């Protein structure tokens, strides 16, 4: 069953036409990755879905309902949470306070504190390192811990769809492995659907079921991860094999 269906979205930054008729979909429980060079439009897709940069035209259907005209907070309520590039945790606040902010809308809806508390405990069991530092200021955490916190904060909204933007950026290999393991756990144990933007295309494709390859705001390839890993154009451009050289008559 499709959870998300995007048809022909066009997103602009001022005069810049950043997404040109992008269409994509996610099936429930899928991990899908977006691959492309810097500026290809990967983050813009995430921002369009979360209404951080709403598309000027096109259709976004989430869980059967159109959402392209909704505000960012309404979209969070419906079940889409974004983990932004560079974590963006609230540095002067404690780990717990950061997590509570992730449940901001649930507090506003006067959801039982015990429920929210329970979710927080689950996040601590997912990231035991955060439990140890629950009262510590987020700004004092390592990069990896901040990433865990950013993911934990997004999960506090109980998303059906998690948008992950460059979760491995600037992290040490061992920490990356840890983060990726958690992403897989989320899908396996919670059935969370994940749209992943990742600089490390190979690692992303190894984890994802499918991928879309973007070039200058356009989708130029869709396929199962195994196929994309075998695709020479993908290898050349994004997996660091051979140098770019398009053959023409």
């Amino acid at each position, binding site marked *: 069953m*499709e959870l998300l269906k995007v048809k022909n979205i066009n997103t602009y930054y001022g005069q810049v036409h950043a997404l040109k008729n992008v269409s994509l979909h996610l099936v429930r429980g899928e991990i899908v990755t977006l691959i492309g060079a810097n500026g290809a439009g990967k983050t813009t897709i995430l921002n369009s879905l979360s209404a951080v940069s709403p598309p000027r035209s096109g259709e976004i259907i989430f869980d059967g309902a159109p959402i392209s005209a909704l505000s960012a907070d309404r979209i969070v309520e419906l079940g889409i949470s974004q983990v932004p590039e560079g974590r963006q945790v609230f540095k002067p606040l404690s780990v717990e306070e950061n997590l509570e902010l992730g449940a901001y809308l649930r507090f506003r809806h006067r959801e039982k504190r015990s429920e929210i508390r329970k979710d927080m405990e689950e996040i601590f069991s997912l990231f035991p390192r955060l439990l140890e530092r629950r009262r510590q200021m987020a700004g004092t955490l390592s990069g990896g811990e901040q990433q865990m916190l950013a993911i934990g904060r997004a999960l506090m909204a109980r998303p059906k769809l998690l948008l992950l933007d460059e979760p491995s950026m600037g992290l040490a290999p061992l920490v990356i492995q840890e983060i990726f393991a958690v992403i897989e756990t989320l899908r396996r144990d919670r059935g969370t659907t994940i749209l992943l933007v990742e600089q490390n295309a190979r690692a992303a494709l190894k984890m994802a079921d499918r991928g*879309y390859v973007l070039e200058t705001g356009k*989708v130029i390839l*869709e396929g199962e991860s195994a*196929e994309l890993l*075998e695709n*020479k154009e993908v290898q050349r451009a994004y997996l660091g094999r051979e140098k770019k050289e398009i053959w023409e008559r």
Partner: protein
Amino acid sequence: MGIWDPTHECMPREELEQLQLERLQATLHRVYKNVSCYRTKFKEAGIVPEDAQSLADLRNLPFTTKEDLRLNYPYGMFAVPLREVVRIHSSSGTTGKPTVVGYTRNDIKTWSNLVARFMTAAGVTHDDVVQIAFGYGMFTGAFGLHYGAEAIGASVIPMGAGNTEKQIMIMQDYKSTVLVGTPSYAITLADRMERMGIDPKGLSLRVGLFGGEPWSEAMRREIESRLCISATDNYGLSEIIGPGVAGDCEHKNGMHVFEDAFIPEIIDPDTCQVLPPGNVGELVLTTLTKEAFPMIRYRTRDITSLDYGVCACGRTVVRMKKTMGRSDDMLIIKGVNVFPSQIEEALVAIEGCEPHYQLVVDRKGALDVIEVRIEVTENIFFDEMKMQRAFLERVEKRIESVIGVGVTVRLVEPNSIPRHEGKASRVIDLRKM
């Protein structure tokens, strides 16, 4: 019967259409970037890939024809550098010069799985022994079925075309359960077995996968009864991928087109307008998953129709009728469209009539005449001229009622009509146009 890829063969239509749109848009961007022929065609039509915002927009895109492939001979239509191509094939040249097609490693994988789909639909499993009686070489038929059977895990006997007696011997000794070849070759095999006094009931054969040329339902019944097998049809052409575009399921009520990989359209071959579902016309195909050799709106010249009705097998993809012939084989006799396969169907329906026939079309004065030559067999050899005359009249009437044009039927010597191990050429057109 099993389903090889339930996700893609049984998709709800709405989800399928979303996937098709995504893949179509991606394909258009890629061909526009990498294939100069498409870039030129699109520019001439004043179109950019972004204009395709729905599947319905496909009809605004220019067609690709065999002529385009010839003009870009040999590698001009490739969308990837040649060093990424792991296989080169050539069209079987049913009409005119061959054309060159290429496959990447992924394309070969995609192809194998598409063939595995229709082979599974026909009933092939990993327990089968598959005898391939298609010619290997430049023709895609043998390799496609070979890969599909291997993907399923069946045991493949890469026999190749011809050598009929050896085929039969291997069939007996190796206990082949599946026969792959052209339908006319299946008849040749049945004929030879009959002459050799071999009872097909004594063989292990149970399924036949036939393709490469149009054949009629009557011919299917004949093959099924004479070889004691389930005879299934499959469809493909090398320009698109080879076999693997569509194939029969156990219900044999039209071949399922694998729509996650191909978008079929039916057009009027004269006006080039898209016809509504159900209408008979020329099949046009667009590939959605090919890397090396994507095709946008390729005119197949094959005449068929599409049925979007639900099939009892559970597959949701559209079904195409058996091809009725090629738009370039289509004979226009006295202004009526006639396909050789219609005549064949009429012949096979007449008891005792062997389907070895030839059509000779000529023009007497301003009038088109069609002569159907049938080989005499013991069944239709009559001592009395009167009975023979009556038989011929019966055949003529029957054909006329099917095609709507009068014909002359003539009996010819046994084995005087050339046999082909590959494709049968049934038509001789003597008209000077």
